[in-house]
Each structure stands twice: as structure tokens, then as C-alpha cells.
């Protein structure tokens, strides 16, 4: 049996030990404890309508079929709900048929497309469709030429700082800060430059 005094001492020691341990254990815990994340940060990409409209402006009217096939109809890759009633049906005299005019806002694969997310963060699907689209648009002479002309360049324009800036302006028309460190360019073709800009994620985030 311990004497009463000793017992008190021991309890005090225990208590000190307990205190020290609490401090030791709980300080990292306190940091870890403050770590419940209540949010998800998706990259706020533009939806299929935004992407198609931006690219159409850059590559011209000739791009519309490519964009319809590879962007607008890929509802679940890019997001952007359809509008079920955005179809217009009217009587036309062509062979006494009624013609149903569909707008690009129609539901491509059924009414459930009206419930998709307003945008979908970059994913394999999205990236794949976009890359394909960019390759097609740059490969096609009319659309490529349209973009080059819009930028105020020609295929043989020098790869100068100011010309590169013109190209960047296609995708970033309102950004104040454009990169100046473009000197080290090892002479890639304008096609390559255009397609790489087209494939980059940044312009897709409005």
C-alpha cells in the first residue's frame, strides 16, 4: 500500500504525464481535425455550346458540321442541358411534308439530356473529342485559312512576337497579360501552333 502522500504525488505525476501526452497527441490532431472539406472545386469549363460557339467564331462557318458532330452532340462529355422544346415544326410544301426543324439546342439522345450538368470538368472524354475537333479544323483548308486570316496572318508570316500574339488573341481576345517569353520558339508551323492553342484547356474556362 502506498501512503496517502505518495498516492497524491503519483496522481499528480500521472496528471502531468497525461497533460504532456494530451498536448503531444492533440496538437497534430488539432491540425488534422481541422481538415473536413465541405466543397468540391471543379474547373469551371465552358459547356458544349460555349466551346462550339468559340470555335465557330475562330474557324468560321465551314466548321459547323465538325462542331455539331464532335462537340454539340457530345452532351455527356461537355455538359450543357438540352432544351426539349427547342424544336420547331412547320408545314412546308416540299412534297406535302411537315418539316421538323431542330435547333442545336434539341435533345440529341433523349429527354434525359435535359438533366445533365451545366458543365463538365475536363475528362478523358472531353479532351478526346476536343483534340479530334481541333485536328480536323486545322487539317481542313477552309477552316484553317479562316482562322489564320482572322488573326491577320498568312501561312508564311514570320514567327515573331507580335505575330504569335495575334494568334493568341484568337483564343484570349480580352486578356491583358499575354506571355512575352516566346523568343525560344524553334519554328513550329502555324498549323501546329494553332492546333496546340486550340487543344489547351485555358481558353475553355471563361
Amino acid at each position, binding site marked *: 500500500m502506498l501512503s496517502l502522500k505518495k498516492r497524491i504525488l503519483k496522481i499528480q505525476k500521472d496528471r502531468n504525464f497525461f497533460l504532456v501526452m494530451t498536448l503531444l497527441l492533440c496538437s497534430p490532431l488539432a491540425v488534422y481535425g481541422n481538415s473536413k472539406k465541405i*466543397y468540391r472545386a471543379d474547373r469551371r469549363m465552358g459547356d458544349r455550346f460555349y466551346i462550339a460557339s468559340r470555335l465557330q467564331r475562330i474557324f468560321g462557318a465551314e466548321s459547323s458540321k465538325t462542331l455539331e458532330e464532335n462537340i454539340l452532340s457530345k452532351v455527356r462529355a461537355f455538359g450543357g442541358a438540352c432544351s426539349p422544346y427547342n424544336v420547331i415544326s412547320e408545314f412546308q410544301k416540299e412534297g406535302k411534308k411537315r418539316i421538323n426543324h431542330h435547333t442545336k439546342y434539341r435533345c440529341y439522345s433523349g429527354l434525359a439530356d435535359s438533366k445533365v450538368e451545366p458543365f463538365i470538368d475536363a475528362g478523358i472524354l472531353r479532351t478526346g473529342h476536343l483534340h479530334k475537333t481541333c485536328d480536323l479544323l486545322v487539317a481542313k483548308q477552309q477552316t484553317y485559312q479562316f482562322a489564320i486570316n482572322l488573326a491577320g496572318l498568312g501561312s508564311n508570316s514570320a514567327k515573331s512576337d507580335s505575330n504569335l500574339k495575334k494568334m493568341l488573341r484568337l483564343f484570349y481576345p480580352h486578356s491583358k497579360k499575354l506571355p512575352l517569353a516566346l523568343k525560344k520558339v524553334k519554328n513550329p508551323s502555324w498549323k501546329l501552333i494553332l492546333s496546340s492553342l486550340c487543344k489547351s484547356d485555358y481558353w475553355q474556362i471563361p
Partner: protein
Amino acid sequence: MKTGFWVPVLLFLAIGSITLYLKDSNQSQARVTTSHSIDLSKESPQYQKVFKILETSCNHCHSSYAGYSEASWVITGQVIPGNPQRSYLYYHLRGSETGGAESMPPKKALSKEELRVLAEWIRGLSKGLAKMPASFSLPKTLAKKINPALTLTEEEVYFRCHSQFSRSAPDSEDQLLAKVKKGLLSSVDACLQLLKNATFNSKSDSISNSIRRTFHGLHNSWFNNFLLFNLQASFPSYDVLDITGPALYFTKSLFSSDFNFNQILSGNQNLRAVRSQEVANDYFIYKKESSEMRLSQHGFFVGKEKNKSRKNWNPNFVARGNLLDIKALKADSKDLLPLYLDQTDSYLAKIFKGPLNIRQNLGGGLIGSQSFLLFNHGRELGETMDGGLLLPRRWSKMVFSNLLCRELPLLRKVDVIKDIQKKSDISFRKQASCLQCHSSIDPLAAAARQMTAVASSDHPDGYTQHIRLHSSNPKLGNGKLLVDSDTSYHLRPPHGRLRYRNLYGKLVESSFQNMQELGQRLLEQDDLYICTAKRYLYFLTGIDVAVEDYSTQLKSYDPISLEYIRFLIFLGKRLKQHQNLSYLIKDIVSSDLYRQRDYQIYASD
């Protein structure tokens, strides 16, 4: 591919480390609709003096100020504690020497002494948070700093909101853009102007059409529609009943000047979209263009084949084309079903004589609308509610999840112990763990007890689904709210109870006599407003903040989470004050978060 060039290009918008500072927006546009008087004796002595000044010099024009407590000024963002210079209220005052608007009051300026009292009061306000409901206060978060390198210019902010609202970039002719460039208009005002241009009474240019389409599509994506994924689905229904029905309420509120946010949950009107082309439809909306099933050959049917009552039916169609307006739907004779069935099986179906008005609404605006009831009734065709197993619980669940952003269970064990009915025949009335959900959804579902889902005919492709509302008979008395089975349940007055823990962890227990009152009960809480803020915040920034009972885990959230919660509550409370969805958008667009190139915020170390 050589990387020499690509690195700078791709790093062009490179993301540095920034910290967040969510600005308590200093551009208040509080359009207060109600003005309760406050209990002045409960306020600080300093504020009592301020209140007197406002009372004599301002309240005859700003009647809402009479209802402002000290906390209201902070919560609505019109006063920044500790900083008179940045406080909207103060920098509007003539002679405040803040460089602000300094236009108030229009005629007689406040005296130097009065100005001093106001400034003293604001300076002395605790820098802590706006007052939260009792037992709920957010811990202070770390100091924050801003990295100006990632802050957008005014022009870029306008480019951003234009791109998001219309899903196209502004073109070079854009007049608002020109004004923003010249510094004649702030980006925030330009963004707000875009929304104003899209209001329903203004003329419809293509940008306005796009903006309406964007927001209506967004609103529509918030609502579940179980019918769409149900075996009993009758797709032709969507040519008679707008599949975007619930969203119409939000869209109307955003684009009509005479439809405040709180009207979304009040009144007994169904809404009707006016669209650009109201020509006859020649194919079902759910069919592709090549469909062989044309309406002119096929159409809609009422009645039953077996007893030879089946015949063509010519209902009012949902309009097609671009959205031009949203109006109250007034039923006409074409909206009356002469016959209807309790199921679609030709042999078993019982036939009922109409007329059944397919445009009825139970009250409470959206929650009692035909579309919200039909898409989420969750019952078999023909079932009448008995208060026990038979209740529209799916509908209750959707009220919580679609409108309040809350998922079940919404009660704690201690809240439901008293609900346990040991002798009940119904399994979930006997156990606390079940009641944590069922004590919320069952008494809520009582509000929709009058509904029964029915079909127009037994034609395999040409039938539509509708909600029949039994008229209630007060003579039957209220009866018990939660019974095992009551054959008159659907005919009794639709009283019920809203029971859940709100996002501050407070137990809400309020009774209602009908759907309209339930709508009002929901409007009294903050959840609906904060849920709406959450959804717009996600749309505008990609930040998706979960809404839950924050009170139980307040200490464990990371600092950025706390900032977001704080911001959401701030936005929601302001929406509750101004009742205006475009101001909510404005509040988000004017936040520092929206102006960060990558929409990211970081805690400082």
C-alpha cells in the same frame, strides 16, 4: 513536339498561389420587401442612437430600415464592421468624406455629430461574424491575402459573365463591352445589365434568348424527374405537361420583374411557357425527327378500348421554340379530361368519368404544381393515400433535396424517440433509426395526401399521366397525422408538419394546414435561400459547397471550407432580404472569388 514554345503558352494562365478574400460585397442592393419593427431595447446603446438618426432622416424614404437590427446591417453586407469607409451605408452619406456615392439624404445632410455617431458605431462593431442564430457561430478563419496577379481586369470579368450567361463570347460590337473598356460602366453593372436585357418584357435579341435558355436549362437540371426513368413512363405526357415545369418558377423569378423569389413557393398557379413558335406539333417531343409516329396520324387518347370508350383527345400542347415569357396557366375546356383510368392494363383498368382538370395546383407554388407532383409522386397509378404505407414519400424527399439541398436523414435519434409507436403495424414507425427519416418525410407527405396518379387511356403509346386531386372535406375532421391506415386520409384536410434539423442544427417543428402554408414555412427558414445560392455559386465558379447540418462539425472543417460556408450563408441571407435572383448573381459576380482567374482560393500559411 518541342516543349520550348509550349511551356510559356500553356503557363500563360498559370496558377500562382493566392489566398482568398471573399469580399463582403459592398454593393448592396437590398430591396427589402417586409419591414417589421425591431425590439430596440435589445440592441446596443450605440445602435439605439444610430437607429434614432435613421428614423428621423431616412426612414420615410427607406421604410425597410425600421426593420433593421444591428445584425441585419452586417448580414446584408451594407455595413462592414470596423470600417466605415468601406461600408455601403456610410459612404452613401453626404459629407462622409469617403469618396463614395455621398448622395444621401438627397436634401438635408446629416450633421457632423450625427455622422460621427454613425462612424463610431461602425468602427466599434465586433470584427467577428454577423450574428448567426443562437448556438451557431462559425469559428474565425485565418487572415487572408490577395494575389493581384490572378485578379481579372474589369474587361475580363465582363467577358466571363457574358460567356457564362449566354454561352458565347461577347463580339467586337458589344456595346456593354465598349462601355466597360472605357471605364463608363463597372463590369458588375454590365453583367447585371445582360440579365436585365433578358427580362421577359424586353425585346428578344439572340443574346437574350441565349441567356434565358442557359438559366432555364440550369434551373431545370436541379429537379429530379422520376417519371422519366420509370417503367410506367408515358413520354407523350411531355407534350401536354411541360417537362421543365418546376424550373419555370425559378426562371420566371429571374426574368420577370413582378415575381419575387418568395412567389416560387406561394399561390396556386401552374405556370405556362410562352415560346416563339406555337404551331401544331407533328411528332411527339420525345421522338427523333425521323419518327414514323406522327401526331397527325396518331395523337392522344382518352378512355378504354375494352368498353369501346376509347377516342381521340385533343389537348393543349406545350409550346415549342425559344422561351419568350412565362405566365400563369389558365385552364380551358381543352384541359379537362372527359375520362381517365386508374391504370393502363386494358383488362384491369377501372374507368372514371371526368371532367378532370389537369392543370390544378395544390398551393405552395412549385411544390404543389402538377409537374412537381407528377414527376415525383413515387406511387403506383391509382393509389390513394392512407397515411400509413401509402404516402407520397418520394415527393417529400424531393422537397428536401431539390429545394433545400438537404439529404435524409434530417433528424437526430433524440428528436424521434417520442415518435416511436411500439404497437404500430408499420415497421418504420417502431424504430428510431427508421424514424430519423420517416419522421421527416411522412408528416410532410401529408401535405400531398390528396393526389392520385392517373392515366388518360389504355393506349400503349398514346396515354398521358396526370395528377388527380381529391377535394378535401373539412367535415371529416383532421384525424391523426400518422396512422397505420385510414381510408379517409386522402379526403381529410391536408394538415401536416415540417420537421427537420436545419443547416444551423436547429430543430424545426412547425405545423401547417395545407400546401400553401407549407410553402410559407419553408420560406421562413434559410435553407431554401442558401440552397439556391449554393447552386448559383456552383454554376458561376465551379465551387460546389455541400449543404448539411453545419453545427455538429463546425470545428473540424478546414479554413477554406469555413470561408465557403460563411460566404454561402451570407449570400443566402441576403437573398432572403432582397428576394431577387439577379441580385444573388450580382453578389457572386462582385465577389473576389469570381474575379480570380482560376476560381481558386487558398488559405494563407
